[in-house]
Each structure stands twice: as structure tokens, then as C-alpha cells.
């Protein structure tokens, strides 16, 4: 059981993504977002999460995926890596699954649509393909300086 990891699964467009559950703080419904002028294009703005101000990024913009109107299923997943906490807008957050480490193949061996820098690997669960994100890289990369 040691090499079993838990992932939070969410959707962007038609694809399914997974992030390590240990990096997820909460999953919120979409809250009012305040725009931040002159921020990078993928930064949606900031939200008030119970008194804490949290920046929110639009993953679809970040990954150059086609934009789509947000549905009531849309969520903001609050993730935290070292000293950085942000929210990510996703089309829906569906489930939590367990994957053995062997089921995740390294990123360079598979070809997916988005920038492979941010991908930890691809997980296979029955006939589904789950793109496992590397949040460290993602958060460090988009950290605005």
C-alpha cells in the first residue's frame, strides 16, 4: 500500500487531470473574482476565501486550451505548495482516486496537448487517461515577479 497515491481528479474541457491530494487545501464553488490589472493573462484575479485573499489562475488559459463558458459545475481548487497558495479554476472536480505509482508513466513517454513541463506523468485507470500535474513547476513558473 506504500506506493499508492491519492489524486483529486478534475476536468478542463474534455481532458481529465489529477493532482496529488496532499497539495489540495479545499475545493470551492466559484466565488466572485476581483480582476487584477496588469497581471499576467492567465491570472483571473483574487478571491476572498474566508478572510484570506487568494489569487486565482485560469488553467485553460495557462495551457492554451479552448475557452468555454463556466457551468455550475465549475470549481476553484485551492492548492498550496511550499509558501504559495493559489486557486485554480476548473470545469469540474469529480472524484478522488487512488493510483499505484507504477500506473503513472513519465511525461516524456506520452504526448499530450499541453506543455509537458507541467506534467508529472500520465496515469492509466482502466480506459481513462489522467494527466497528473506537477504543481511545484506550475506554481513556480507562473509566480509573478
Amino acid at each position, binding site marked *: 500500500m506504500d506506493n499508492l497515491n491519492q489524486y483529486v481528479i478534475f476536468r478542463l474541457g474534455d481532458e481529465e487531470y489529477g493532482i496529488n491530494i496532499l497539495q489540495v487545501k479545499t475545493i470551492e464553488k466559484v466565488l466572485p473574482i476581483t480582476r487584477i490589472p*496588469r497581471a499576467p493573462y492567465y491570472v483571473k484575479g*483574487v478571491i476572498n476565501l474566508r478572510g484570506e*485573499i487568494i489569487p486565482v489562475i485560469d488553467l485553460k488559459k495557462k495551457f492554451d486550451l479552448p475557452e468555454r463558458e463556466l457551468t455550475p459545475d465549475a470549481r476553484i481548487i485551492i492548492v498550496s505548495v511550499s509558501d504559495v497558495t*493559489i486557486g485554480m479554476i476548473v470545469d469540474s472536480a469529480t472524484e478522488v482516486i487512488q493510483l499505484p505509482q507504477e500506473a503513472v508513466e513519465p511525461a516524456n513517454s506520452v504526448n499530450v496537448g499541453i506543455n509537458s513541463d507541467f506534467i508529472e506523468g500520465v496515469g492509466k485507470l482502466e480506459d481513462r487517461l489522467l494527466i497528473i500535474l506537477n504543481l511545484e513547476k506550475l506554481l513556480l513558473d507562473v509566480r509573478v515577479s
Partner: protein
Amino acid sequence: MDSKYLSVFIEESNEYIQKLNNELLELEKNKEKNVDEIFRYMHTLKGMAGTMGFEKFTELSHQLEDLLDAIRSEKIIVNSDVVDVLLEGVDILQELVEKISESGQEGEKDISKILEKIKRVMQSENLMKSKEKDTEFKVREENERIAEHPLNEYELRIFEEAYKKNLNVYQIKVEIHQDCLLKSARAFLVFKAVENFGEVVKTVPEVKDIEDEKFDREFFIYLISNSNIDTIKKSIESISEINKVTIKEIDIENILQIRQFDVKPQKNEEINKKFVEAGNKENKENVEEKELKDTKKKLGKTLRVDIDRLDNLMNLVSELIIIKTRLEELEGDLDRDQNKREAIEYLSRVTSNLHDAVMKVRMVPIENVFNRFPRIVYDLSKELNKKVKLIIEGAETELDRTVIDEIGDPLLHIVRNAIDHGIEAPEERVKYGKAEEGILKMKAYHDGNNVVIEISDDGSGIDCDKVVRKAVEKGIIDESKALRMKETEIISIIFEPGFSTSEKVTDISGRGVGLDVVKSKIESLGGNVEVYTKKGEGTKFLIRLPLTLAIIQALMVKVNEEKYAIPLNAIRETVIVSKEEIKKVYNKDVVVLRGKVIPLIRLHEILDAEFDEKQREKFIVVVVKKGEKDIGLIVDDLIGEQEIVIKSLGNYLKSLKFIAGATILGDGQVALILDINSLFEEE
């Protein structure tokens, strides 16, 4: 090692090291100073380190403690070398603590050199001291012998009578030549001679013993006489085989006071009175001392609280303020319900009080920062061969803890500059007719909602020509522009990145960190820095900091439909200007207000918002200030003044331009706070 104890150890060690630094500097100034306290601090440090198992730290503090003990028991006299060794030792202790706080270990630091130094000081000084002490002791003995002999009541009475009759009492010390064979005969002759001048009251040893030659080479005579010392002396010296005659007048009044004889009250009213007075004085001193101790005790009654817990408390209070604001907004609907309105008013009052109370807890006297400087100034002036006197004022002024933590480095930088570039070398100062010792002054005081820190020196001031030359050389400004610049503008160049006037790069100032870093640090704390200088007379840096970082008064404005907060302390006024009043200067929009030309900025442009100018006839302008400069910001609407809680945007969105932070409004929405300083840079 338990990290909880470790952090306590680190914090307390730092405190003690700080205290040691201060006390040692005092010792440097006043070598006679009592070292008990220093010894105690060192002892405590040693104990703490021992408990924590830090061997080097314990060993070094132990040796330093021994040295202090030697000073305390007067085996060693204090000189600059001793103080230097002590200071160096304390420095190394500090280094060890730093290392420990980084890694939990003492590291590789080699302490054998300092231990050697301590040893050397203890040995070499030891000899000096004992020699010096001997001679010193002899001198003292000789002097003190005057009134050393006990006087009985009878003798005292006689002295008193003599005093009343205005006669003098002399103590005559006679030293007979060592080769003299008939000492008592010589003594007899001396007595004979002395008796011509007055009455012999007492001799030491007694007359009988002198006659029996039961004395070494010297004896004392107490004589009441109205003749002067010289006449008596000459007369005795004319006797042969007398080696030396010392005559001293005895201060009877003094003796009567010092010796607590049982004097009869009716006869000695005056003396008695003096006794009482003296006693009172002593009492008073006691009382003062006690009061001093009491205040010390009171100061010591503190509680160490983790700053995170305080921050948490502060956050909760902030939340409360947000809800309060929200309730106040609701108030309009409650107009008819007196009770509810009163309850809300009461809530507001309690909330503000609570806020004040929490803020006060976070307030720390700036002393915590200023304390470091006597040592720093001492080291720097020594290193640079300059004489500097540091004056600290207003150290009790309180500032938010966050500001205190951050302000140390900028201040250090300015102080370094002042000593390195500002204050001249002693010879040079004398040449200019100044005192050899330069004066560096650090002063803190409250000014409205701000705390002002002034750092001034009486050095050479900033050389504008030199600044311009350097700035042109480094390509910060071009030559033609330089000619047009006003003095204040020139001086502000020193805050530009990449500027340093130091002709030679010294160890102290030329570290590549310029005043631009100082400036940006202070601005990041919500403050600003100004500089005033007069060539040949000195320079003054004026740092203005907000009392608190967490909660401010702000004016809420609308740009399109978005709400933004502008800190109230940056606002000069709000005005409405018509389209016609907006003029163009150098292709920039300006408006003239009471004869002053004010550049205009459309916030819409800055904030990437849409702006339809053609449809407008009138513009709402918020005039913001920075020092003497003003800028007008065009906004769409004014919402009103409000108390806002400043929140950070987090680590992810660091250093966004034009945005200083965010706040949460009564309706739960986030509004951004404008960074007024950065707008001035844009302009």
C-alpha cells in the same frame, strides 16, 4: 534537541548579547564602571548554553565570565584592550547563536584564538594590576592617614572648641632620619618646637610611647594653633635628623560629621542638624534607588508570545472590523429601530477599542532597533578612524512589530553612509572649525499617524556637484538635463539604482547595496524617505513610517465598476475639474490648482480599464501627494472614506506594479489598494 527550547535559547541569548554589547560600551566609556551586571549576564548565558549542550558557546562564555570575575574582584584593571577582547568574545558568541539559529548546531567556528586572547589578557594585565595597585595603595594610605586615628570624645570636644574659636587643627607627620640614634630626643625637640605655636592635643603613638622610643621612624602630632602651616613646618625642619615633615589641616567639621560620636545634643545642635540632613539625604537616595528597582521590575513583567498567535488575533479583529463595516452599511434600513442602531454603535466602539488593544500588543519600542547602534557606531568609527558621538532620542517610540523587524537594515545603511561619507576625519573637522568629534543623531517621534525617524550628522553634507558628475558618468542622467535640475532633484538622485558617490570603495559602504534599496524597503513598509543636506553642515534623513501596517483609513473610489482604495494619508484633496481646465504641457495633461501645475493620470489607463473621454464634461480628480509633489488621479466616482484592513496578495503575486495590497469590503468582495508611490514613479 527540542526545537521549542532551542528557539527560546536563541531569542534569550540574542537579548543577553544585546545587553552585553550595550554594557560593554558603557564600560569602554567609563572604565571604573561596576561589572557585576555584565558578569551576571555572562553567567546566565553560560548556564543556558550549558543546559542546551552547546560546548563552544559554554567554553567561551565561561572564559569571558572568568575574565569578568577578575575585573570584578579588581585583579585586572579595565583598559581598551580588555574591553576589545570582551567585545570580540561577545561577537563570537553572537556568531555562534546565528549559526545555531540557522542549523541548530554550533558549526565549525574556531574559538581557540579568542580563548588565547582572553588568557593573554588575564595574565599580562594581572601583573600590571598588582604593581599599580601597590603604588596606588601606598598613596592612598598616606593620604588617608590624616584622620585615620580614632579620636575620643575628649579630643573631639577640644577640636570642636578650637573650631568655634576659629583656630586650626593640624596633623603633623614627622619622619625621623633612619640613621638617627636618639629618636626620642629628636621627638622631644619636635614637641618643644611645636608647643611654641599652640597646644598639642594628641600624638600617635602616645607621648609615653614616643619617650620610650616605641615607634618606628614616624609619629603624628595633633596641634591646635593659629599659626600657618609653613611657619610650623620651617621650625620643625630646622631640627637636625628630621627627614620629612608633612602638615595637614584637619577639616574638623568633616570629622565631626563622619565620626558618629555620641555628641551631646544641647552643645552640638549644628552638628546634629547636619547629621540629620545627611541621614535624610541617604534616605532619599535609598528611596530613589528603590523606585528605580520598581520600574525595572515593572518592565520585566512581560510575556513572550509567538508572533503567529498575535497575527491570528489580529486577523480575527480584522474580520470583526469587516463585519462591523457591513453592519454599518446596513444601518440605513434600521433607522426606525433605535435599539438595533444603538447595539451596532456599541459594537463599533468595542471593536475599535479591541483593535487599539491588539495594535498596542503588536507595538514594540524602537529601542529594540536603536540598541544595536551604539555598538555598530563604535565599531565603524574605530574602523574608519573617525570620532563619532552617537545621540539617541525617543527610543521609547513604539512601532508595529513588523516594521521594527524590517527597519533595521535600512537604518544601518544610512548610519554607515553617515559615518563613512558624512562625518569627516578628525583633522579635517578641526580644519573646518568643527569639534573633533562628529555627532550622529538618531531620533524617533510620533507625528500624527506616522512615526518619524531622523538620522542626522554634522558632517560634510552631500556634494551636489559630485552627485551630478557621478550621475552623468554613470548614465543616470544626461548632461543637458543636469544643468536644469534643481538642488532637491539632484539630491534625490542618490536614491537611484546604481548610484554611489564613494570615490573609493570601502569595506563599509561600498557593498553594492545602494540607497535605492533603502528607499524601496521603506516604501514597501508604506513609508517614505526624504533627505535634507547642507554642504559643510551635515545631512539629515527623514524616514516616515505608518504607525501600523494592518489597518488604515482609505478613500474608496470607482474606476468603471471596480472599486479601489486610496490610502487617506496620501490624499491632499478631491476636486472636480471641467474639460476646459485640463491643459497640455509637453503633451501631458495637467490641471492648474491655485497656481500649482498638477499632472493628471487617468486611473483607467493605469488599471487597464476602458475610458470614454469624449462623453465627459467634468472629471473627478483625487489629488495625491508625495512629499511636495502632487498628482491628480481621474476616477469615475467617489464612494467614501472607510477603515480598511490591509491584506497581502500572497507570495504568488509578489511586487505587482501599482497595487499595494487588497482589502475585503463589507459585502465580502475584494478591493485592491493603490500603491500611490509607484504612480509617482510612473509620472
